[in-house]
Every structure is written in structure tokens, then in C-alpha cells.
């Protein structure tokens, strides 16, 4: 154990300050290891796909995560103009960590509108829509997303999820000729 004595600070032959006791070092090391270990467990549990998601996740755990409002407005403008790939690019810029429920709801909605077809739907886009909707619901503490937007036919995550699942379902109604009369929401 190093000696915590009086007098001016001196250095041991190993170069460590003798006033820093081994117990303090051990306590700091233990706390640091537990925090670091917790961070690694969190990474493996959440599985962020990009460094932006890692930093966003860490920021969100301190309630310090903020979306880029300007990029969100750009995305909404493109979304209303039916330019969905460009809208998603703007949404990704607005919410790089994919942790904002409202932005992820619009991402899911963009997949729905892009994948919707009068005769058939694009299953790949609908599946991506469900994935985005899952992120949106997970990000909202209430487990349900509701937005106020008069341009949308569906304003809650429950409605959108039901519509996406309905679109992916295969049954006799797919062959109903009256399907061409239905409208995109």
C-alpha cells in the first residue's frame, strides 16, 4: 500500500503519486469497469447499426438527444410531395439515431405510401415500414404513437400497423376486382 504521508507530493519509483492510495485506485477501477461493462451490455442488447445510433443512444440515456427540426420540416415537405426516398433521406438526417417516435412514424408512413399499389403492394417496402414503426413505438414511452396531421389518413401507430399487416396478408380478397377502387390513406 502506498504511504499517504505529509510533506510535498513525491513520486514513487514507478512514477505514481504516493498520495493516491491503492484503495482509491481500486475503487475507481471497479466503478469504471462496471460502467464500461454496462455500456458494452447496452450495445449488445440494443445493437445500434451506426455510430450515430451509438452516440444518439448514449445522448438519449441522458435525455440529451434532440432531432434536427429543420431536416424534419424538409422531410415533411418532400413527404407531402410524394417524394418518399428523398423524404426518408431528410428524416434520416433529422433523426440519425432513429430514436424519435414522430420521425420514425413518418418514415414508416413513407414506406406505406411508396409501397401501396392499386393492384398489389410492395412487400419489401411494407416490411421496412413495419420495422420503422417498431422503432417508433419503442421510442415512445407510451408504446403508441399518435400524430396530428390532417394530410394523413391514419394518425396512430395502431392504424398504420394494421394497414401494413393487411397489405402483407395473402388471402382471397387479393383477387377481388373491386380492390382497384380502394384509396391510399
Amino acid at each position, binding site marked *: 500500500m502506498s504511504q499517504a504521508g505529509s510533506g510535498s507530493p513525491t513520486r514513487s519509483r514507478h512514477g505514481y503519486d504516493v498520495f493516491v492510495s491503492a484503495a482509491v485506485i481500486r475503487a475507481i477501477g471497479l466503478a469504471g*469497469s462496471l460502467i464500461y461493462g454496462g455500456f458494452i451490455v447496452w450495445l449488445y442488447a440494443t445493437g445500434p447499426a451506426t455510430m450515430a445510433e451509438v452516440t444518439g443512444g448514449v445522448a438519449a440515456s441522458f435525455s440529451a438527444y434532440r432531432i434536427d427540426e429543420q431536416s424534419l420540416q424538409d422531410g415533411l415537405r418532400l413527404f407531402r410531395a410524394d417524394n418518399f426516398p428523398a423524404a426518408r433521406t431528410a428524416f434520416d438526417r433529422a433523426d440519425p439515431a432513429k430514436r424519435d417516435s414522430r420521425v420514425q412514424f413518418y418514415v414508416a408512413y413513407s414506406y406505406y405510401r411508396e409501397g401501396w399499389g392499386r393492384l398489389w403492394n410492395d412487400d419489401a417496402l411494407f416490411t421496412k415500414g413495419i420495422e420503422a414503426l417498431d422503432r417508433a413505438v419503442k421510442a415512445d414511452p407510451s408504446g403508441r404513437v399518435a400524430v396530428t396531421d390532417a394530410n394523413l389518413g391514419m394518425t396512430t401507430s395502431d392504424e398504420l400497423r394494421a394497414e401494413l399487416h393487411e397489405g402483407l396478408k395473402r388471402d382471397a380478397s387479393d383477387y377481388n376486382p373491386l380492390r382497384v377502387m380502394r384509396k391510399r390513406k
Partner: protein
Amino acid sequence: MTRGAVLESIVLPWLLLTVALLAGLRVTPAGELRFLVPPLASLVAMLLLMMVVVQSGLVQPWRLMHDGRTALENLNGVVLLGALAAASAQVVSAVTPEAGLPLVLGVIFLFALFVNTLAAKPGPRHALRALFVAFFAAFTVKFIVLDALYAPDRSLGGRLLTGLLEGVTLGSFDHVVWGPRTGYITFLALVLYFSALVLMPRDAVERSSALTRV
């Protein structure tokens, strides 16, 4: 004493936790991160690996935890051994192919080498050499040989060879090709892992068997 405390409570646990973090990280060709937890086969191989490092004296758990140490010192020992186990499981998983017949062959290869090392009862220095060769041989096979064979832009000869292998093994010879950064990250993790094994606190006298000295 202070130097030992720094090593045991800060340097080694943080080094091994970094290995546990990096060795499970894969980067896809598109640049996305994937954090893979070790499969059950890697956990069993990790137990064998822990037996090797303890039997050879590379790691001496009785030095890290015993009645004569304070509670804080014993806690440091527990954390260090836990970090070593996590890092060991992840490095085994990192150098083993992820799918198909190469996974089975990789696991058998590591199991055989660990059991062989256990049977030989080497001292720390020899055990370290044996593990070094085993891990870097497995790394070479996975990240250099198999990646070259299964690279998307492989040559006609490579395509013929992989086609032949898949045909002979009824399609079970499969390999997951990650982005090139994965190899560098795994290499770094292996270097850190072996650095940690070298730095592990142990008695000065090597417990090498007499047979190796004859």
C-alpha cells in the same frame, strides 16, 4: 502495491472489456455495425480456454481472490476474471467462421488444440505460444483464406473452387463475408487479448513442467 492495483483494477479489466467489445463487432460491407453475442459452442470453447490458461499458470485466480485480500481487492479480482471470460468467449467466436461446415470445422480445430494444450500441461510461456499460434492460424483461415475464396469479386478459379466445395459438401460449405474493417478490428482485439494475457499478474517462477526442460 499501487502499480499492482492499477494493473488489476484499471489496465487489465478495461483492456479485456475492450476485447469483449471489439471481438463481437462485425462491420457489414455496407458499413453497418453488428454486435454478435457468442454462440453456445464458443462458450464451451471458452471454458476449455480458461482451463488452459489456469492450468498453465498464465492466469492465477488464487492470486486475484483469497481470504487475505480485502473485499475491494476481491471484487477487482472477480471483475477481472469476468472480463477475461467474456473476452475469451468473444475472441473464440471472432476467429470461428459464422456458418455452415467452416463453423463446425473451426470449432473442432479450436477444441482439439485446447485439449491438446491441456494434455501437454505446458508452462505459461509455452501455453501462450500455443494459444498465439492457434488463434492467429484460425484468424488467417477465416479472414484471409475464406474471405478471399468468398469475396464477391473473386476470380474464376475461386468461383470454381467454392462451387466444387459446395457441391462436394451438398451446399453446407458456406461462409459469411463481412466488410474489410471487421478483419482489422478482430486483429486488434486479438493483439489486445494476448497483451492482457502477458500482463496478467502471476508468480515470478515459471511453473513449466520438468519435461520441457529435459
